């Protein structure tokens, strides 16, 4: 059991990209902390079913939506369905993200557009949709999942790095825009994790990361999820527009 099983009691949480890895861990951690959780996924029905089962095992009854975060119709329909089911939405976690481990010479224009669409436009579309019920309630949390690298010395595919930097700027500006409604917006920047996108990096790069990482280990999705839970909980009332690295000090 988590140390604070009631931390998100009564909260309605929507996690994008919730069927695998970090998104799934966030969905489960929020459920364990007492929240009702909905999540989206884009492709793999088996993964989504498995994540839904994990949320149920944690005591939840998830709403699950299939679609691309870059598809405005899917986004609007998802938020409308959550609000119809639960009467509102307290927390949006913009977690869905993709990457390709490619040198820039091999990044096609379509690759660039696809990464920017999912990683940046998706966060914008979901935030825009989620803000309607949040502004009405004059409360809410939007939590974006970025990537470490901000101020850290690391290699990263250029389109992925650009998309995550865009998300950092998006977080700053959005926090200022909606603070007056009591809505807090933050960015969590995970380091390379033991599971997930980063593990697709070349072996030499992973070893290099571990060598220079002060904690000398990869983080876990659960550790990042715990940080997310605190930041979107009622315990956080004065941190907004903040970039929180969860990377062992990389």
């Amino acid at each position: 059991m988590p140390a604070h099983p009631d931390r998100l009691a009564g909260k309605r949480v929507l996690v994008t990209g919730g069927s695998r890895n970090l998104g799934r861990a966030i969905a489960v951690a929020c459920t364990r902390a007492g929240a009702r959780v909905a999540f989206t996924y884009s492709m793999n029905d088996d993964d989504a079913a498995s994540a839904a089962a994990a949320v149920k095992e944690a005591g939840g009854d998830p709403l699950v939506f299939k679609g691309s975060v870059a598809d405005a119709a899917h986004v609007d329909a998802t938020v409308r369905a959550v609000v119809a089911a639960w009467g509102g939405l307290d927390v949006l976690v913009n977690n869905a993200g993709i990457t390709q481990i490619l040198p820039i010479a091999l990044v096609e224009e379509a690759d660039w557009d696809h990464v920017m669409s999912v990683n940046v436009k998706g966060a914008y579309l979901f935030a825009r949709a989620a803000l309607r019920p949040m502004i009405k309630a004059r409360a809410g949390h939007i939590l974006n999942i970025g990537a470490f690298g901000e101020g850290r010395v690391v290699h990263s595919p250029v389109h992925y790095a650009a998309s995550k930097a865009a998300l950092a700027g998006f977080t700053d500006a959005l926090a200022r825009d909606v603070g007056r409604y009591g809505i807090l917006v933050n960015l969590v920047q995970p380091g390379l994790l033991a599971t997930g996108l980063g593990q697709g990096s070349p072996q030499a790069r992973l070893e290099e990361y571990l060598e220079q990482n002060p904690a000398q280990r990869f983080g876990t999705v659960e550790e990042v999820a715990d940080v997310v839970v605190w930041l979107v909980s009622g315990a956080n009332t004065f941190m907004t527009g903040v970039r929180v690295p969860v990377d062992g000090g990389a």
Partner: protein
Amino acid sequence: MLGGTGHVGAAVLAGLARAGVPAWFTYFANTARADELARAGHRAHRLDLRRADDIRALLGEMAMAGCVPDVLIHCAAHPDWRSLEELDDAGWDDVQAVGVRAAFVAVQALAPRLAGRAADIVLCAGLSAVRPVPAHVQAAAAHAGLAGLTRSFARALGPKKIRINLLALGILDGGTANRIDAGFARDHLRFAALGRTGTADEVARAILWLALENTYVSGMVVPVAGGI
């Protein structure tokens, strides 16, 4: 806890008491508040944080008593508010000694005693550690010094499972905020996303989160300032 009787420090100690976590804390002048916190189960030590040897001695005393701390929190500042024109060398030195050196000395004394055990260090500074806001030059230098210390210690001590983070606090509803120029405070709030001052309790919650629950955040220097 270095600096336990200040506006934020006392709120942190109250939170630790609620969490059932006993603390040793230092204070300098506020005996009444120190007594009150001691009644909540903490152990008060009157100590001048300008005196590095006294900080080392306190860590030594704790070790002798068998309680090498799992958490070290620095929440102290030397209250010298003189202007640029009036400040003398001694005033500058005192502000740096309490604001930066005390944290350095305590971490340096603590690290070898942990002997591989994990620990969390949480430092507090003013917003000028991370944002170009108006601040007394002596305080701004100390805050920026703490930011550098945080990043450097994070790298050096990470392999020893010691995490260290810095929270740069915005304007609160009391404490040193009482000394802030009213015009600046107004401007500050106009730019702050939440448009309000913070409370000691909400800052304390962020400190306690890092102190008691953190496992993989280190070298972080972030504002807790309502969106500045």
